């Protein structure tokens, strides 16, 4: 259990959280290498299928990053993401998947440190939880 490295798929908004991840890199702010980033134009572009696919394929966690409420580059995309994630949480719970493995965070373009902290925090939390139950089941 000690050498378990969680795998996180991150869906990040092009304008804020993706830029924050760039900023973390540019500023050499280190964070664990457990996250794979997929850039979306807007968190509102997130199709719940993407999260479902990641979960079913054994991701230990999914991180969704959008602009702070009221700051969406596209006016209201992050609110749509918020509602969608709320529903995703409910569905995952029904499937017996711990909804706390899917995080939605508002991280603006200037918050490189916050992005790195979020990833660090998420990796620690997932290490606590252990591997995704779906990973075990499906990798038999």
């Amino acid at each position, binding site marked *: 259990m000690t050498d378990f490295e969680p*795998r996180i*798929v991150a869906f990040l908004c092009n304008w804020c959280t*993706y*830029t924050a*991840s*760039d900023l*973390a*890199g*540019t500023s*050499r*702010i*280190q*964070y664990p*290498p457990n996250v*794979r*980033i*997929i*850039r*979306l*134009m*807007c968190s*509102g*572009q*997130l*199709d719940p*299928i*993407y999260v479902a*696919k*990641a979960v079913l*394929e*054994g*991701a230990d966690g999914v991180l969704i990053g959008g602009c702070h409420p009221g700051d969406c*580059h*596209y*006016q*209201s*995309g992050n609110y*749509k993401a918020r509602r*969608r994630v709320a529903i995703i949480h409910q569905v995952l719970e029904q499937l017996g998947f711990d909804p706390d493995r899917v995080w939605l965070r508002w991280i603006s373009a200037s918050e490189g440190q916050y992005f*790195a902290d979020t990833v660090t925090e998420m990796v620690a939390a997932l290490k606590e939880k252990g591997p995704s139950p779906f990973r075990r089941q499906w990798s038999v």
Partner: protein
Amino acid sequence: MRGVAYVERLEAACEETGLAAIERAVAEGDLNRVVVAGCSPHLYADRFEALMARLNLPPRLLARANIREGAAWAHIADPAAATAVARGVLEMAVAGLRETPYHPFNPRPQETVARRVLVLGGGLAGMTAALTLADLGVECDLVEREPQLGGNLHDIHHTLEGLDTQTLLASLVERVRQAERVHVWTEAELVGWSGVRGNFAARIRVNDEVRSERYGALIVATGAEEATTTEYLYGQHPRVVTQRELERMIAGGRRQEAGGKMWASCFLPLDSCRSVVMIQCVGSRDETRPYCSRVCCAQAVKNALALKRLDPTIEVSILFRDVRTLGTQELYYRQARRAGVRFLRYEPPAKPVVEADGDRLRVTVHDTLYDETVTLEADLLALSTGIAPREDSNRALAAMVGVMLDEDGFFAEAHPKLRPTDLARPGIFLCGLAYGPRFVTESIAQARAAALRAALTVTRPGEPRRDVATVEADLCSFCGLCVAACPYGARVLDEEERVARVLDSLCQGCGVCVAVCPNGASRQPAFEPVQALALVDAALIE
């Protein structure tokens, strides 16, 4: 990695030599997709787009694997981890690109731009804009509500700096009437407006007949008007006038003539006026009209100096709150003081009190500089009422063309510093008093700027945009979810064809419509769902 036919290490892919190497490799190897592993996709996107254009490939077939900010730098302390992340990022980029279809769905026909501009309002700003457009080689229609061109300029006889605005007016009208590319419609009105930048459809009523026209851009130059008031016996006593009426009297006195519609007192012979009092900020800078009208201090100083030039023995007193003669106009304020114009400062709520004294007027004011109450006998009282927006017609026009008014009722620009002549909706521009109080010279400058912006809009070909959404008509079920989800109103339902349509010039490429579409009919070629799913797959490969 599956699908990878060629790999080359470049010093700097974004530099001339690097781009040339990619171009060569693609041409020689007959390759159709490119992955650039390097810095963040936020950098040098334009260079790689230009590269793809040169290769005659759609730009979405070039993917960027961010292995610098996303891997090398983020894990600089742990080279092994950085390498692992970089490998993962590269695999994801290749996998995503493998799934990106070569043929775009539903290729859109090139938009044709109507090379014609509608200018609303035939005053100083509108005429200047129309002439500037004509000089730039752009056809325009100038629509004026009144029977004659000129608007407010008819009532301005000269500027404080001495510009003869009546000569300017005459020459403008003459040039507009003669310009081949300017078509003037007077007693006309815009009654319908739809469409998008480059392709607007307008309905214009001219003489009880409604014409339908197409335009590429719109310039709003509908002006404003002198505010009116019920304070200080205005409208009740014949010797109380507005600054503009005083200006007309002075001009009439100078030319021994008075033309146009004017109020009875405008015929008041100036030689019976031995003492003139002016009150500033009438109905302005209070709760109902909080803004400063910018021009009235200069207008009062202008009229005071004109009176003094007619007859230096006329006594002129200006009751002010704050004199704001802008910039070098301050010199004229000093000149007025030197000529003997008295400036007395009052401060609300202690406003001046005006009483009728038979045929004459008595003005009592508490001068805050002397701290004394002063009583002035006046033959004439001129009120600086300022400039008011044409609120009802502004509101109707704003609703029709889909733009906003500011809290004072003038048109609100898209950005006060960066886009001062644009309205928030693409392809609609603004100049003159419709934007707020301004001087003649400022109106001219802004009208030229707006004309230039409009000319750029209609003369540039519609730029191809890679990020807009499209609809695959065969899959669309006409449910309207995308219309409800779009924050920009860029989605409409085509009742005839029974499909949803995208208005390209309004679409900002956020992809919300793609996420809500239950049938997968909404598409964003640069961000296909199959691509995202392939990325998820690649991200989770052990």
